[in-house]
């Protein structure tokens, strides 16, 4: 399969993730959309790695996964902290509380 197919697939996934992250109001769903963006990148990395016959990109993918896991650990803790205070994970509530 030509590499363009992978390119278009992962760009589509990336755009879905990006639109979701910008439009959804639920913090958990926004976070899932960001993970989708990272996974789109992973897919493209592996496709390019195969194209160039170069293992460096696959190593990079492992690092992305590890860092994403670290981010999940911190991010979910922050969301839980927020939920305990306002009993909601809606991002709009934050803006309303500010004033």
């Amino acid at each position, binding site marked *: 399969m030509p590499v363009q197919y992978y*390119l278009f697939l992962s760009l589509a996934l*990336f755009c879905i*993730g*990006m639109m979701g*992250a910008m439009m959804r109001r639920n*913090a958990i769903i*926004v*976070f899932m959309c*960001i993970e989708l*963006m*990272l996974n*789109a*990148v992973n897919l*493209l*990395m592996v496709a*390019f790695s195969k*194209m*160039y016959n*170069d293992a*460096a*990109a696959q*190593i*990079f993918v492992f*690092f*992305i996964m590890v*860092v994403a896991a*670290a*981010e999940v650990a*911190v*991010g979910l803790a*922050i*969301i839980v*902290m*927020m939920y305990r*205070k*306002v009993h909601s994970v809606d*991002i709009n509530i*934050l803006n309303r*509380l*500010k004033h």
Partner: protein
Amino acid sequence: MKAIIAATVLGVILMFAGLFVKEKKSVASLAVFLLFVLLGVNIWDLVTTAPNETLSFFNNMLRVDRYALWFNTLMTGCTLLYALLVSKEIQRVGSHVAEYFALICFILCGVYMLSTYNNVLILFIGIEILSIPQYILAGSDKRNLKSSEASLKYFLMGAFSTGILLMGITLLYGATGTFNIIQYTFLQSDMLSPMALAGILFLMVAFAFKVSAAPMHMWTPDVYDGAPTPFTAFMATIVKASAFVAFMRLFSVSFGAISSDWMMVLAIITAATLFVGNITAVFQQSVKRMLAYSSIAQAGFMLFAVLAVNATAWQGMMIYAVAYSVATIGMFAVLMKMKDYTYDGFNGLAKKDPMLAAFTTVFLLSLAGIPLTGGFMAKYFVLLAAVEQGKMMWLVIFALFMAAVSAYYYFRVIMAMYFKQGNAELNTEVSATDRFLLAITVLLVIVLGAAPNLILNI
């Protein structure tokens, strides 16, 4: 290289110290001592490297040159100054003092990686090591809803921009087949593929997020305002300066040869940053929020160094990073002593505490870029770099105009202190040690303004 290892080890030591040492004060003293050690390690690295030597580590993934070592040393020095000035305030944020200092050590590890990377993998990891501790620090005041909100907002924005950064890296890899930033230089203007251009654009947007350049600056005021003030001081200075050095390293080392392709986009970002930062800062009522917008405005000036792509730009970035960090840390240290963060809270400070008011005035003059202060030399060098390059004269003139606007909101604080009646209330008594440290900071600001060559001739 030694500094990266030392920062990690010292961070881990501090975390364990939190288990065994219960007294907050002794933990803070230990942290300051360890930061001294870290500064020592940096100086050791600096003196054992010959002036023109560049070292490579990890199969050429890290490339350590004199500039990077000197930058690391100066940033560690600024962190030490910061820790000395605000360690009392950090102890008041919450009960996990050891962890806060440990996270600051980890952030420094990220700073060292960002100033020495030669491979975008290290760039990515460095940015994450820099960012993740900051999400925690922003939310460290758990009783305060604003702090949690700042943390959540910063986290979502940071993760989003990481996604964009990674997409840029991947597209560039697709275009060139390498992660090494020096090998990117074979990108030529006439054979630039759309994929490489898209990659460069993605990277530019991701970096604009990290350095809070308009129009990707939306998170900055809320995060800087909501986070506990001692940590805002750190985020706005050392972290921002090192994100800029990473930005500059990538764009001048790798994409410097094709600068005509991306320069216009960055020039528009710069103009927007200067405009939004300065104009919005004028309308703020809280000094803390004004400083957040001022940090956006100062980012606009630092973007000139990225734009110019020449030797003066590197010097300008160095002096801007130090002068801006020192003045802002000083300003935040004064702000933390105040009970009321609005402009009115500063009314009549000159009568109540003339010395503190005088120190504040010097910091504000430096931020506004008045001659004889570090801020003036910093602005002079970055604008000189842009003039030498000569393609963006309209932007330089616009920046000078905006610098004049910035004087308005900095001088408003000075006006409040000296010419308004009022009773400025202090949060805590300013001790003799605080005065001494603030005096040293003032001295540094003036020395930087009078003799910038001290840190430029390395």
